[in-house]
């Protein structure tokens, strides 16, 4: 059995707002094993960003950790001193952000930024520069030595995102968090980035937590998938299980909505009517109930727990009750 790298254990996070406590994350549990690619899918407002900032502890001042732990290699990050946490960031855990146009400092050359990021290393400047060039080459930037002298505006969006990946992998982290790294790019570049990530993952053996709302990208890249809705995990499991045998109505509907699934021209595309509930004023019972066409009376009363259905598959839905107890 592979070693667990990151464990999110019953994590609940609130934001204190003028309207009261906004329950951004509720009872989130999942883990990432060493060298594994785990995808987190969910739509706007599902808590993806809160989750990432909680793992890195880069949360807004009005954030309250209500319960649970974030364990990285066994130690609870929520208890770590700020100093130890800073050592961890960028060294053991790296991140690639969504917008490649805003990740880099516009007034410093790429080479300078890639040397700066190695500030913990004792190597000489020329060694750091050659390592930077090597990494640029590894993410497929041609003529890396010369390009180190250039500034971010001299690179295209796809190249900037690859440079961001190169920088994130510089310290050979154990965990790379990729926050919608392809959303700002067009399809051909998206594919280039995914293929690059796959290759680098095999080379560096880091685990990747890949956040996206693009199901196609998740299906192609990830080993396991966590589906989030309105601040909760509704389903998680092996990528094939999730896409071929989804056990939560939200997952099913989400997959149905993807126009990539519909090969014939459709007059009316499927949608999920209704809206995400107000997290500051949560309704009782299942959070997806109002938008679910299979809701049972029980769904209005109790929150369904995330239950194990098969070895690699969990879902939080009362419809699976028979399966659970069979």
């Amino acid at each position: 059995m592979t070693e667990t790298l990151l464990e999110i254990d019953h994590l609940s996070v609130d934001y204190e707002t003028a309207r009261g406590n906004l329950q951004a994350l509720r009872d989130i549990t999942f883990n990432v094993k060493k060298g594994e690619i785990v995808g987190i899918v969910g739509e706007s407002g599902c808590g993806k960003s809160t989750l990432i900032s909680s793992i890195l502890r880069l949360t807004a001042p009005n954030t309250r950790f209500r319960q649970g732990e974030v364990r990285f290699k066994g130690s609870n990050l929520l208890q770590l001193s700020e100093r130890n946490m800073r050592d961890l960031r960028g060294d053991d855990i790296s991140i690639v952000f969504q917008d490649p146009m805003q990740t880099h400092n516009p007034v410093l050359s790429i080479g300078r930024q890639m040397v700066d990021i190695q500030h913990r290393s004792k190597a000489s400047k020329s060694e750091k520069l050659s390592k930077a060039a090597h990494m640029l080459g590894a993410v497929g930037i041609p003529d890396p030595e010369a390009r180190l002298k250039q500034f971010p505006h001299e690179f295209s969006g796809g190249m900037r995102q690859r440079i961001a990946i190169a920088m994130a992998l510089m310290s050979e982290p154990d965990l790379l968090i990729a926050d919608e790294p392809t959303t700002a790019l067009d399809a051909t570049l998206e594919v280039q980035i995914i293929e690059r990530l796959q290759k680098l993952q095999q080379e560096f053996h880091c685990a990747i937590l890949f956040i996206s709302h693009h199901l196609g990208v998740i299906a192609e890249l990830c080993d396991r998938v966590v589906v989030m809705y309105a601040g909760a995990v509704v389903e998680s499991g092996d990528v094939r299980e999730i896409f071929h045998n989804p056990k939560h109505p939200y997952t099913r509907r989400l997959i149905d909505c993807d126009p990539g699934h519909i090969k014939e021209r459709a007059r009316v595309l499927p949608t999920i009517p209704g809206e995400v509930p107000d997290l500051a004023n949560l309704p009782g019972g299942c959070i997806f109930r109002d938008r679910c066409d299979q809701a049972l009376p029980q769904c209005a009363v109790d929150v369904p727990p995330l239950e194990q259905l098969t070895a690699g598959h969990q879902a939080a839905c009362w419809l699976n009750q028979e399966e659970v107890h069979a």
Partner: protein
Amino acid sequence: MTLLEVNNLQTSYGAVNVLAGVSFSVEPGETYALVGESGSGKTTVIRAIAGLAPAQEGSVKFDGQEIRGLSERAMRPLRKDIAMMFQDPVGSLSPRLTIGSLITEPYRIQGMKDRDLGAEAKRLLEMVNLPVHFADRYPYQLSGGQARRVGVARALALEPKLILADEPTAGLDVSVQGELLNLMNDLREKLGLAMVIITHNLNVVRHVADRMGIMYLGRLVEEGTTEAIFSEPRNPYTRCLLSANPEPDPDARLDRIALKGEPPSLLKRPEGCEFRERCPFAKDFCIQTPSWDFTNNRGIRCLAPLS
């Protein structure tokens, strides 16, 4: 009569030749999609049609009338018939105006003083399925999907004949994306609108467009009905674009054709076929310049088309 006829449209910013001759036409009620990578000139095309970007050469005929190079004053009455939906839904709405005044702004600009703006706001919000009380809200209070609908409402205010939509679904969640596309399809049928849609999401094109044109480095490299392009792409570039579409299925058999590198710089366009250096099917003779070959409603610019 053809509603929009774009012929050999060319745009340069200094030495940068952004559009190197683009030609296509749109019939009344038809949806035409322009597809291509970032930097291929899609947005410049529709901005040039709307008179928001310069076009030094070529012609843009709308309803038979030449509109390229019209002054802002001469263009203004035409803005009733040609509406634009901008790419950034929130950024295209003034943060200091309410939704009600934003969607009725076109009436004020056109000097339609006889209109009851309150009633028009209500009608437009209902048309795009937004609650009527949204008229009093400000753009920051809207979600991305709602802001898009406001964009649609505003584009529809003056009952245009043609909508130019720049990436209408970019950044939307899949469930909301479907809603917006259904709404646009619906309105198109009801109002008989013609549309030019720009998108890099090919999954979307299949469901909204009647015909499509594929752009590369400021030129069309293939054109045809959506069905024909999807079932039988003939330009290798089109084939690469289509195969770069990640499928929401982990077991999808991907005979993907990798697109090498990045688009070349517009400052030094490659000689011969401009896609040659990235093309997995390039032949020796591709060093010659391909011409635009248009037969049977199918256009292609390629010396070695796929069959």
